[in-house]
């Protein structure tokens, strides 16, 4: 038996320490062979990881301060100015030359790379805001004297997080709705489809404008409202997959075994529908980012003062004399969306069954298998 087990283990690869099936292995291989998408994923992951820790990259507080033998972590905890020998009981402003001197005389501070966060107003600009790029502000400042690099880092993070949240939640809702409609079909499907047709006719932009006049929209409000409509993108593909699978023999076989409907949906059909869903996800993600940017640009998005790419764009329009705003926003948004598209294309290729894959395919042998029989490679679809 030992030999046989080895045999089984060898036929399956590993990924991140997990055992994976050969289908997955083949897909990973295919994803990697799309060089553009593969590198896009890495670049995106690096950018995302950096911005995820935005507070450590761009902040107006040092993340470590050493003062008279004590260690302070201003990013995590607010210290009054008096803690460093100042006069006020309010939180210390570490950028204040006085406070900085107090600390530096009795210890030291470690600053993030960018010494501003997305809300920090730079009072000491050499030129009136928006000021052009210089040594202190690499991409200049906006018309409220806030550092553009800092705003980009925070804006990128919130865009991507919003995109992920919207994509994942709408996928869950959309897949569930599509699964139920496709699997049961009939009247349920018919009514649900008509409902969706009416629902998708709702003017989402006006809804948001109305909403903006009633409440102050924040991250969660926007997410909720967009979710009301974005889940429908997934329903189509999942429903189609379930409608198709419903009549396949392996579903019938499961029914003949006495498996319940819920189990059939989860164990047998859903894994097949996930291919279409996962393929759609990067594109939905890019779409969500675009929508948020658009709303921010129109001023009905995130609350005033939040860092967002759309807001930088809006400022660029208002300050045509400051081209660095427009150029920066354009290149950041274009790069981010291109990266997401390239990743999406690579994922689509990886899941495309019509692509010619390398790897183990059905063996030619037809008779009983003995332990020694190895699957012989053959070509699928021809021969």
């Amino acid at each position: 038996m030992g030999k046989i087990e080895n045999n089984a283990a060898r036929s399956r690869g590993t990924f991140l320490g997990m055992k994976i099936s050969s289908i997955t292995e083949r897909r990973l291989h295919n994803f990697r062979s799309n060089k553009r998408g593969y590198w896009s994923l890495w670049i995106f992951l690096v950018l995302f990881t950096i911005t995820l820790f935005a507070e450590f990259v761009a902040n107006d507080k040092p993340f470590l301060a050493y003062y008279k033998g004590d260690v302070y972590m201003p990013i995590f905890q607010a210290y009054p100015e008096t803690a460093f020998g100042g006069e006020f009981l309010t939180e210390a402003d570490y950028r204040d030359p006085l406070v900085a001197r107090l600390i530096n005389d009795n210890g030291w501070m470690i600053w993030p790379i960018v010494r501003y966060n997305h809300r920090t107003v730079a009072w000491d600009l050499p030129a009136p805001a928006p000021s052009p790029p210089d040594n202190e502000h690499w991409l200049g400042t906006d018309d409220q004297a806030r550092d553009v690099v800092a705003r980009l880092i925070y804006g990128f993070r919130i865009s991507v997080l919003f995109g992920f949240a919207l994509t994942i939640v709408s996928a869950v809702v959309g897949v569930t709705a599509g699964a139920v409609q496709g699997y049961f079909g009939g009247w349920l499907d018919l009514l649900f489809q008509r409902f969706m047709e009416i629902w998708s006719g709702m003017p989402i932009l006006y809804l948001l404008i109305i909403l903006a006049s009633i409440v102050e929209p924040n991250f969660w409000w926007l997410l909720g409202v967009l979710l009301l409509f974005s889940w429908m993108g997934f329903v189509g593909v999942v429903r189609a997959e379930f409608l198709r699978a419903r009549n396949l023999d392996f579903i019938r076989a499961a029914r003949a075994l006495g498996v319940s409907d819920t189990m059939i949906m989860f164990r047998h059909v859903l894994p097949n529908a996930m291919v279409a869903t996962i393929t759609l996800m990067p594109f939905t993600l890019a779409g969500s980012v675009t929508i948020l940017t658009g709303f921010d640009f129109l001023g009905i998005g995130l609350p005033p003062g939040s860092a967002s790419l759309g807001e930088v764009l809006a400022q660029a329009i208002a300050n045509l004399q400051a081209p660095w705003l427009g150029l920066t926003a354009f290149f950041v948004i274009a790069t981010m969306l291109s990266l997401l598209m390239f990743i999406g294309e690579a994922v689509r290729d990886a899941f495309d069954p019509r692509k010619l894959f390398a790897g183990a395919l059905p063996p030619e042998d037809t008779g009983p298998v003995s332990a020694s029989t190895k699957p012989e490679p053959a070509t699928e679809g021809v021969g």
Partner: protein
Amino acid sequence: MAETLLQVARLGVEFRQPGNTVRAVKNVSFDIEQGETVALVGESGSGKSVTALSVLQLLPYPVAAHTPGSSIRFRGRELVGADENVLRAVRGDQVSMIFQEPMISLNPLHIVEKQINEVLMVHKGLSRNAARARTLELLDLVRLRDPEQRLKSYPHQLSGGQRQRVMIAMALANEPDLLIADEPTTAVDVTIQAQILELLNDLQARLGMAMLFITHDLSVVRKMASRVHVMHAGSVVESGSVNEIFERPQHPYTQRLLAAEPKGGAVAAPPDAPPVMTAQDIKVWFPVKAGVLRRTVGHVKAVNGISVKVRQGHTVGVVGESGSGKTTLGLALLRLEKSKGSIEFDGRVIQGLSWKSLRPLRREMQIVFQDPFGSLSPRMSVGQIIGEGLSVHGLGKDEAEREQMIIEALEEVYLDPDTRHRYPHEFSGGQRQRIAIARAMILKPRFVVLDEPTSALDMSVQAQIVDLLRELQARHKLAYLFISHDLKVIRAMSDEVMVMRDGQVVEHRPADEIFDNPRAPYTRALMAAAFDLEAVEEGAVRT
């Protein structure tokens, strides 16, 4: 001697994929003279279709590549690596091809007239009217009935046989010198197969064209070809005239292929064994709805008043062509399809039982489907597939015991127990069918519906699966309802045979009687088509 029409020499085809090169065809050489029929025979994966596609250079280049030295000469002109313009002039004009599956080879959105006209207009530059006249002529040539009306039909409105005739008409539109027929009758019923083969034979004689006939079915070869090349694993293992190959096969593979037909008869069982499944007057009617209000205007009577009794250890064979309702009958008996009439399993009335109260009985009635590729969930490992029934019915105390049962089930169908960790796509058709059988058998059923379990398989594999099924039946005293369109397999399995047509029983008698002395004209037509490939004219069968 006529000029050699096609010379294939040292043909090799490789599929180059990252990290893996598959040699699909190795060093294949053959010639086709004018007006001659040459057959390429082999099982699936033997490279015969790839060889045929190479002739027209229709392979997915550059993934596919010809090995150096490969040569395909048509009328002396080299086709390997030829210019696209040269190839276009040859394809469809001097060499045409008909494919296995007519439904997917015809454009579903074009009417018949347009499909055929297109060929004529592209290659011959005919005007619309001239093309139409020629199309009619062609449809007449392939003996499609009512060609005038058929011109306006879409492919889905035609039967399988009619579609294949349209395909042939398209292929003949430009009077090709060589017709490549890639398994042209595999997807159609036996009676249609006989008709199509006769048509092809007749057309060939009349038009004097050569044919390259690709098939896995040896009886078709014997009927059609003058010379045969047997292919195995990408190489030609034996070549010769039909007589040489069939009378004195030299290569062991050819001998094996010839001996591969399912043989023998039903497993002996006491004639008075207790009945396991009894059904009276089963009806499955599908409503036909029309109008805005979807009122039911009529019914498709898929199964119309059929009674059947299957005894323990016995096999009832159900024969019929596609659309005769035989699969629906099988599903109805297992209560997987709504039906009327009484169904008794093991003395218990199961018609009308709810899905839930039926579940314990599901264990004892199982089904094996035709398509071993579709009936196994592609995302579950073999162990999970086979073991699913165990957890549904709460069999086996713990994981270890279930694992042991899965191992036993795999051993019973002669698969290595180690295969339980693999996924279905890693297996061949025959192996998958064994997995499907193991899935049914692990529950120790008493009644099994076998819905064309051998139809999607190669001939030699069919025989193995039939042997396996008989062995399991003898060991476990299983009652089988064996559904098939293949009379050879039915003869090897059944105690009784029921011939179905349009949802009704044409003839239902013990197997030996029905095979020795078929009474109904339809049964006789089926037998002639199946055993002698003779088409029976008019009346008994449809076209």
